[in-house]
């Protein structure tokens, strides 16, 4: 994303008598404490960089793997209107992946490396996409619940301490709200349709509800990265806090849909001013994470295949470019100082 050219925000007052790591770290800490953004060429602790690469890569991978479960339904959409909407949504997911890969590259990790790690199973994507989309109603449930959970997670990321990530998230959140609304509208149409359609909508919600709650990650006391990420202001709210927010948002939305959430323990807790809800099956979450979900192999296999089958297109485009454009445009992308944000 954004380049040093256009986008160099103020650094914390950089008195640097000696550029020792301690001094640099103090400048970094002060910038984070003052709610300033860290920009690509600022000094940052190695662990901060690594943590960002991990999170942003996982986020980018999730966007492009997330195209698969819904793309399966494009050719089966019940009307031209729904088909056009679904195509636009899936195209958006590709775009969101690209925004995030660009942002991740500003930390000095190249696009090919990120994709290689995804294909080799060395970087993850959100476990939610390892569940199958069995009926048309699943497209609605994904929009409402999965994108709804994603938005709940992502809105605070717009204020993430790392500038390029925050900027990518602003753009993504703007676009994401149509995803959620089209899903909700789709479910509403089914819920108010024939008894069979209503049942289909309810079944989809039943299957997607719990995996959507798992999208917020493990409970706070079991989350490996949470505390440090919050200290660095990469994350602004804990997993459990966001999960609770999501439940509170969804309960009245489900009522308006005329559908129920598959959790008999959901009830309003007057004292807390929030909804209580049932226990999440974290064993299932761990299993899916380990690769034992219903579609893990299928998703990664499809992703690898798409990449391999696209090789001739990339090669042809590169060959054509080699013939027709000035040679200087083909210098290695990470070679010089004036390299957009991609210079670490």
């Amino acid at each position, binding site marked *: 994303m954004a380049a040093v050219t256009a986008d160099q925000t103020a650094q914390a007052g*950089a008195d640097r008598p000696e550029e020792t790591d301690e001094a640099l770290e103090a400048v970094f800490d002060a910038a984070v404490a003052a709610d300033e953004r860290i920009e690509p*060429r600022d000094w940052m602790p190695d662990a901060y960089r690594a943590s960002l690469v991990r999170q942003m890569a996982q986020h980018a991978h999730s966007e492009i793997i997330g195209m698969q479960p819904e793309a399966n339904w494009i050719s089966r959409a019940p009307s031209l209107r729904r088909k056009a909407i679904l195509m636009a949504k899936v195209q958006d997911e590709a775009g969101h992946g*690209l925004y995030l890969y660009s942002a991740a590259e500003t930390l000095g990790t190249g696009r090919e490396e990120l994709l290689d790690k995804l294909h080799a199973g060395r970087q993850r994507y959100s476990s939610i996409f390892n569940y199958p989309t069995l009926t048309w109603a699943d497209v609605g449930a994904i929009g409402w619940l999965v994108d709804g959970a994603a938005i709940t997670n992502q809105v605070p990321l717009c204020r993430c301490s790392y500038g390029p990530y925050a900027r990518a998230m602003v753009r993504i959140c703007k676009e994401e709200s149509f995803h959620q609304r089209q899903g909700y509208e789709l479910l509403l149409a089914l819920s108010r349709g024939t008894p069979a359609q209503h049942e289909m909508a309810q079944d989809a919600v039943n299957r997607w509800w719990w995996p959507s709650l798992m999208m917020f990650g493990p409970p706070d006391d079991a989350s490996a990265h949470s505390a440090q990420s919050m200290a660095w202001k990469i994350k602004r709210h804990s997993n459990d806090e966001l999960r609770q927010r999501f439940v509170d948002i969804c309960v009245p939305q489900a009522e308006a849909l005329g559908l129920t959430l598959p959790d008999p323990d959901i009830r309003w807790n007057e004292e807390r001013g929030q909804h209580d809800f049932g226990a999440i099956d974290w064993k299932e979450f761990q299993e899916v994470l380990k690769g034992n979900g219903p579609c893990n192999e299928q998703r990664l296999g499809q992703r690898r295949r798409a*990449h391999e089958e696209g090789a001739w297109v990339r090669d042809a485009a590169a060959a054509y470019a080699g013939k027709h454009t000035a040679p200087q445009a083909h210098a290695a992308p990470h070679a010089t100082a004036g390299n957009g944000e991609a210079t670490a």
Partner: protein
Amino acid sequence: MSSSTEWPLWEVFVRSRRGLSHTHAGSLHAPDAEMALRNARDLYTRRSEGVSIWVVPSVQVTASSPDEKDSFFEPAGDKPYRHPTFYEIPEGVKHL
């Protein structure tokens, strides 16, 4: 993976409507300028966010280093008289 090397990186600038300047929107990879323009259209103007796009090879951007910040921008730091608010004008004087 393909044997080809990675496509170069391009910085994308979008003019959102006539009368405004091009603003940096982000970056993308593309094999050449023409493809960079097409990719930029698909990536950054899916909702009619622009009427004009520039793409610039990222390697062609020369940037000031953050390390230079203090000394590089220091000359402007002690010249408040370049701002109109520096000057005191009697109450009631208009159009100034």
